[in-house]
């Protein structure tokens, strides 16, 4: 194995989150009654014509700009011809000859080593419908709700050599798309799916080996497994002196194997040609500049800004920006509470813990930044202690309660009553003479013990600053 290296390129299909489909006005919303979101155009009825949704073009250009691609001024749609019942026109409108974006790259980092992964092109295309086989013994049914949902396909160069690099690339790409707001990138719903082109070669060898393409992989874990399996399969063949067939393979994650789908000899001839129903796309430079200006701040820029503007450590900045949703919550909370490090801690520690416990995806977090900010304020002002604050935060996370109201209603506020606290302090001093002696002999630990005993008797609700002050002065007076 050590003699070989993997060479991997990716084709990433991303469903764009436009409201309507690529060539008609139908909704792109996921789910719904079969064939309730289609019209004569996306069902390929006779006489229908496509009209490009400009938002699709805009999203493709935004993605191209964020991945350092050149935007083609004169681009075109092509027809990819093949027969399948889920494809109503029997051709997919896609881009082969002049894709909208080309020659970009993304920098990834694996184990502290940075590497540039080339992007060959990004093109636009339409999704197909869905076959339903389990409704009837004799017939299959077709749901065209997905037919015409806009996709972009991002094709990388064969620049990756490990599954770690592949996953780092995909994570980075996913984050960019999320930040741009062009896709929700849900792998489970199929809105972000990658095909893997993989070959192996002896280390030091210049020319590429014969590659296979693996389809149907729908999680990062499966991607890792598929890469390991396919590389081993190819190396075993080469070691036996056999050759690798160029083919398309299907990843079967349940059994952990890849299966041949079709070989190059049986490869389809898609008879691509420019779609005569769609005029060439002439992309105006000014429009591209406008899109460029409107690009949201991406992760790298955010990390730098968090470190500079909020004086956060790089560690915090990286975690907070690991999801656009997390960064959004952070920024909105900071805007109210003006205490970035404290906000950062609440998000990095408590929020992420609860996400794990409650199995909540970051995009499904529902609490409002206002309530988190109020909670932080209560703690800062010494009105509640941290233990109670954590408990209240769980309620904020789950039900988005207002902490101020809650504290009032449940009398969880800190006790500031001097006379009451002095009494308790004196009780504790009386009950723990040994600790008092220790303190007097200079053992600082004893003070902490006495503090702890007081807080315990107060069930944690005493104002710690005040208790500290009172305990010290009582001890001094002894």
């Amino acid at each position, binding site marked *: 194995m050590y003699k070989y290296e993997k060479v991997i390129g990716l084709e990433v299909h991303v469903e764009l989150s436009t409201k309507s489909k690529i060539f008609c006005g139908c909704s792109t919303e996921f789910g719904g009654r079969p064939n309730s979101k289609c019209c*004569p155009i996306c*069902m*390929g*009825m*006779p*006489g*229908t*014509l*496509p*009209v*490009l949704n400009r938002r699709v073009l805009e999203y493709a250009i935004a993605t191209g700009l964020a991945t350092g691609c050149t935007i083609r001024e004169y681009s075109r749609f092509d*027809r990819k*011809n093949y*027969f399948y*019942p889920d494809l*109503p*026109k*029997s*051709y997919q409108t896609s881009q082969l000859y002049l894709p909208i974006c080309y020659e970009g790259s993304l920098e990834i980092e694996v184990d502290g080593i940075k590497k540039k992964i080339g992007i060959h092109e990004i093109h636009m295309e339409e999704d197909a419908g869905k076959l339903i086989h389990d409704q009837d013994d004799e017939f299959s049914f*077709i749901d065209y709700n997905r037919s015409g949902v806009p996709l972009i396909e991002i094709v990388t160069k064969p620049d990756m050599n490990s599954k770690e690099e592949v996953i780092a690339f995909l994570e980075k790409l996913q984050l960019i798309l999320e930040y741009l707001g062009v896709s929700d990138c849900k792998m489970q719903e199929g809105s972000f799916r990658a095909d893997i082109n993989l070959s192996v070669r002896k280390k030091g060898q210049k020319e590429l080996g014969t590659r296979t393409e693996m389809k149907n992989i729908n999680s990062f874990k499966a991607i890792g497994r598929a890469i390991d399996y396919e590389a081993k399969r190819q190396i075993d063949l080469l070691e036996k002196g056999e050759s690798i067939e160029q083919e398309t393979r299907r990843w079967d994650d349940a059994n952990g194997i890849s299966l041949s789908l079709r070989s190059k000899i049986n490869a389809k*001839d898609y*008879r*691509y*040609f*420019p779609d*005569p*129903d*769609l*005029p060439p796309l002439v992309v105006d430079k000014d429009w591209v500049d406008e899109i460029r200006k409107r690009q949201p701040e991406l992760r790298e820029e955010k990390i730098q800004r968090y470190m500079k503007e909020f004086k956060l450590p790089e560690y915090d900045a990286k975690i907070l920006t690991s999801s656009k949703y997390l960064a959004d919550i952070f920024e909105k909370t900071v805007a109210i509470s003006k205490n970035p490090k404290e906000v950062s801690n609440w998000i990095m520690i408590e929020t992420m813990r609860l996400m794990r416990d409650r199995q909540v995806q970051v995009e499904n977090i529902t609490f409002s930044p206002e309530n988190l900010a109020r909670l932080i304020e209560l703690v800062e002002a010494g009105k509640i202690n941290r233990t109670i604050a954590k408990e209240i935060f769980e309620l904020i996370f789950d039900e988005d309660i207002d902490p101020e109201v809650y504290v009032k209603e449940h009398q969880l506020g800190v006790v500031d009553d001097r006379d009451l606290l002095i009494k308790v302090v004196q009780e504790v001093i009386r009950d723990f003479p040994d600790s008092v002696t220790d303190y007097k002999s200079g053992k600082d630990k004893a003070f902490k013990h006495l503090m702890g005993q007081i807080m315990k008797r107060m069930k944690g609700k005493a104002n710690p600053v005040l208790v500290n002050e009172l305990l010290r002065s009582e001890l001094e007076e002894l």
Partner: protein
Amino acid sequence: MDYAKMTALELASKIRNNEISAVEVTKAQIKYIKEQEDRLSCFITLLEDEGLKRAYEVQERIAKGDYKDSPLAGVPMAVKDNILTKNIRTTCASRMLETYIPSYNARVIDKLEDAGAIILGKLNMDEFAMGNSSESSYFGPTRNPFNTDHVPGGSSGGSAAAVAAGEVFYSLGSDTGGSIRQPSSYCGVTGIKPTYGTVSRNGLIGFASSFDQIGPIAKNVSDATAVLDIIKGYDSKDSTSIAREYDSYTSALTDDVRGMKIGVPKEFLDSPMNSQIREQFDKVIKVYRDKGATVEYVDFQTSDYIIPTYYILTSAEVSANLSRFDGIRYGYRSPDAKNLEEIYFKSRAEGFGDEAKLRILLGSYVLSSDNYDTYYDKALRIRRLISNEFDDFFSNYDILLGPTSLFTAFNFNAFLNSPVEKYADSDNKYTIIANLIGSPAMSIPCGYDEKGLPIGMQLIGRKFGEKDIIRSAYSLEKEITS
């Protein structure tokens, strides 16, 4: 009253002036059509009840003062059967769509209905508009009203014959390489193929998307112009529709060609033209010169490439355009198909006629990865070269003039065993050119041959030069037809 002899505009004006009722004329036309149809077979679907119902509606609205700006309101017409009509069977003259009922109207149908047209039915054609004789129709051929042993031309054979026979006052056809003009020529009527992008293709069942245009077939230039005025215009639902100001073409109906520059392809001087056609052609040239236009012979370097380029590109486009007819969602499905593969193979084998299959094979061949560069891509490039040469021509000339066809309507089965001859025949080179470059073109009747079959002259203009061809056609019509 003998309605059949009237023009559409004459009839409309009498309807508007309450001299004739749209209902009476519709009844008379339906009766007349039924008499003629045994002989001619222009219609695939005759809308007897719907047509009459519509006539009552339109007549009522005319009486109420509606359709004031519609010069053709109340006039019965019919439509080539590749143009979608909501709730009315639209077959493309194919078994594939024998029972297909569209859920929406083509844009041109909406426009015609808004203008008070009375649609009497759907007209016969070559299957999926491929052919020049209307013989490839699944429903059987249409016959030429001048001589029923002869074809009406094609592919809009039904549209031309129905107007020529007086069954309807005008019709719509579609033109991909001459499919409006050649049958107009063979049937002695006037047909216009507009500039590509002038009339919406939305709802036209596509043959070759980058060539197809819908256009009018009528009894004279004024009628055809009035129809074109109704159906023209930008449509945001057709991406190839061109957004611009389309002012009325009617203003071009003047008998004034002074100063116009007309070019005639030099190769017509020695092409194998029927002698009566040559006589007419010479006469036309003389008429134009007498009326103050200049007529010059012009050599075209790229003209030999017109036909192969056309067949490669249109076959490629149609091979994909006809792919959706797969027996899955609508259209013909073979009753013998037992699995998915058989649905495709059997439905398409049984649903398409020979001509459609031939073009699908041709198109698939030129688009296959081994042949793409040799044929399709090369043809695209040559189309550009041809366009450049003809654009140059039109920067110096207003009109390209020639006979629409080098011969008159041929007999049935003339090309039955020689499809290559049919394709390669230089006869349609100069109708095809208009579609290759996107120019407007028109055929108008110019006399008859020794058998009494009509002769047509073709006028091609520069892109959006509709007014030039209409003006020169109108001027010629005054001199020759009347």
